[in-house]
């Protein structure tokens, strides 16, 4: 490096440090923007960036600008932990949103207790909030709740004998376990339990066996990605006419496109994000859902996903807590966050307590039925 370049660099640095310090609230995020969980992290990052811009255009929080410091951890727990440390120590953020995946979340979680910084995870697993950690919150519902919701709908239709066909991927395996676990309490008997690999292309043998099971009344398919679409097509191919349930893992328009006509008549638990225009006028989630969809479509020209909705809720919960705390002290923000009551988001209505850091109940899930290639809410 030449001497001039060094000199130029030094004077540039001097200029930077000489700039007047703006009053800013720094919020950190570590998301899987790329890599295997990019389908989660990408809409989450887009949502956060959009929301920060919107917030600052409207005057920020209590008149202070918000700065988002976003790192891409690629769903790698090691990277996530490094970024979380950097966010806390170097960037001096007041709170952190993130962990698109459960792995990344659990790697970061212990840091927040050490440094006393509030953290809102966007990952699904129940271990994040059970047992409750003082500084760790999360916005998505758990797969256990999805099972309970599905079973509640099955029993309300007067049926009890259920067959499971689950993917062996992380999502499917975890949800299968939770479903088996909550079945007795939900008044449901699991009479068939089959599985398939995530990239399998034909599940007719498993479905043939399920359909031949004595007394079976309904079939549930916990799974993610292309597997459930193949299962749905095979289900129609075999002409099985038992009520069929999918999970919240496939609650997207993409799924209907892949499964085609075979998807008609099946039901699944999902967030209200899929039925913005069919929500009742007095539904507390109607406003946030329509706001989010309009803003996201204006900013990115595509429909938002369920996963982006988790980030939307996390950001609003946090901003709301900072406003109520009237302070940027992380511990006071945490206390305000835990006191959140009846916050209507796009995923559900959140009420945190010291014992519950997810704050959602079963009403956050709506049972939807696919009719004529579109979503229709099922009256409860």
């Amino acid at each position, binding site marked *: 490096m030449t001497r001039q370049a060094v000199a130029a660099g030094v004077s540039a640095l001097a200029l930077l440090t000489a700039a007047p310090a703006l009053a800013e609230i720094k919020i950190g995020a570590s998301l899987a923007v790329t890599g295997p969980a990019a389908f989660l992290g990408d809409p989450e990052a887009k949502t956060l960036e959009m929301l920060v811009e919107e917030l600052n255009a409207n005057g920020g929080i209590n008149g202070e600008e918000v700065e988002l410091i976003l790192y891409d951890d690629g769903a790698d727990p090691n990277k996530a932990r490094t970024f979380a440390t950097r966010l806390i120590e170097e960037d001096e953020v007041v709170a952190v949103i993130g962990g698109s995946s459960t792995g990344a979340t659990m790697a970061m979680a212990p840091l927040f207790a050490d440094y006393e910084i509030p953290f809102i995870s966007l990952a699904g697993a129940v271990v994040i909030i059970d047992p409750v950690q003082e500084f760790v919150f999360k916005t998505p519902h758990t797969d256990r709740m999805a099972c309970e919701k599905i079973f509640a709908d099955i029993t309300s239709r007067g049926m009890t004998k259920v067959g499971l066909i689950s993917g062996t991927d992380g999502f499917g395996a975890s949800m299968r376990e939770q479903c088996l676990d909550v079945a007795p309490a939900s008044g449901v008997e699991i009479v068939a339990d089959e599985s398939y*690999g995530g*990239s399998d*292309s034909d599940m007719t*043998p498993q479905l043939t066996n399920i359909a031949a099971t004595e007394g079976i009344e309904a079939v549930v398919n916990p799974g993610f990605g292309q597997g459930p*679409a193949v299962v749905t097509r095979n289900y129609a191919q*075999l002409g099985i006419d038992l009520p069929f349930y999918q999970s919240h893992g496939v609650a997207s328009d*993409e799924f209907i496109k892949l499964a085609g006509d075979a998807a008609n008549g099946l039901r699944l638990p999902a967030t209200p994000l899929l039925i913005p225009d069919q929500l009742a006028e007095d539904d507390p989630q109607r406003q946030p859902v329509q706001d989010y969809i309009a803003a996201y479509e204006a900013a990115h020209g595509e429909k938002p996903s369920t996963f982006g909705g988790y980030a939307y809720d996390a950001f609003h919960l946090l901003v709301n807590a900072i406003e109520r705390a009237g302070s940027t002290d992380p511990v006071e923000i945490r206390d305000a966050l835990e006191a959140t009551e009846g916050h209507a988001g796009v995923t559900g209505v959140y009420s945190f307590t010291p014992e519950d850091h997810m704050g959602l109940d079963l009403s956050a899930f709506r049972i939807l039925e696919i009719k004529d290639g579109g979503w229709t809410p099922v009256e409860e």
Partner: protein
Amino acid sequence: MSELLQFLVSGITVGAIYAAIALGFTLIYNASGVVNFAQGEFVVIGGMTAAALIGAGVPVWIAAPLAVIAGMLVGVLLYRLAIRPAREAPLVSLIIITIGASIFLRGAMQAVFDKQIHRYDGFSGDAPLRVGGATILPQSLWIIGGSIAVFAFLAWFLNRTRAGRGIRATASNRMAAALVGINTGRAMNLSFALSAAIGALAGVLATPVTFTSYDVGVLMALKGFSATMLGGVGSPLGALAGGLLIGLIEAMTAGYISSDYKDASAFVVILLVLFLRPQGLFGARITERV
């Protein structure tokens, strides 16, 4: 009884897909001794290109051949840009190059296409046909027919044509082949083009049933490679039989034992066969003179 029939139909459908992928492995191996680990990516290129074209409104009978040609072009580029410059390298290095090419192609496909899962309608519709209590999709018949056609073509090509015999001679001993006047470079080029085309064809035929996305190539290649090993490396008949056998074992295990052991049972059979007949079911026993 109708259950058994359904399991058979399922096994043959899946097996035919494995066989089509295995046949692609066979050709490059026959020409160069290289096991091409980018074979699964050719399958994905075929499926993704067809899906993109059909999505853009191109009729399927134009999109399908174009997708096969696209796969073929990528195969030629792979040979020209990655394999030929390293042709003096030992075989293991060439195989590692194909692994690198597979990773590169997966990345490139994310950029060229997208990360979504794609499918298009079956060539003859999606209404299942009923065969004595079992159901089969019309597309499954296309896949089975396609695999048999590719097998017949390869058997004829490798044994009955000058170009095909040139490919086999090149594999057997490249220097000797060159000495008797065979253009070994052209033979290699041809084998990469053809096996990429076979892979892409498998993708085009299978996508209505299996769906496709940029990252399914690895697993496709794994199953196709297993079929190749089981049937005997280098034998088109072995590839066909190996693919169908693995598909049937998987379907029968999922049907009669438990779907949890489906993959395991296929690999147990492969291990047993390789213990008893290391050259595979239809492979030629190769004696190396030292």
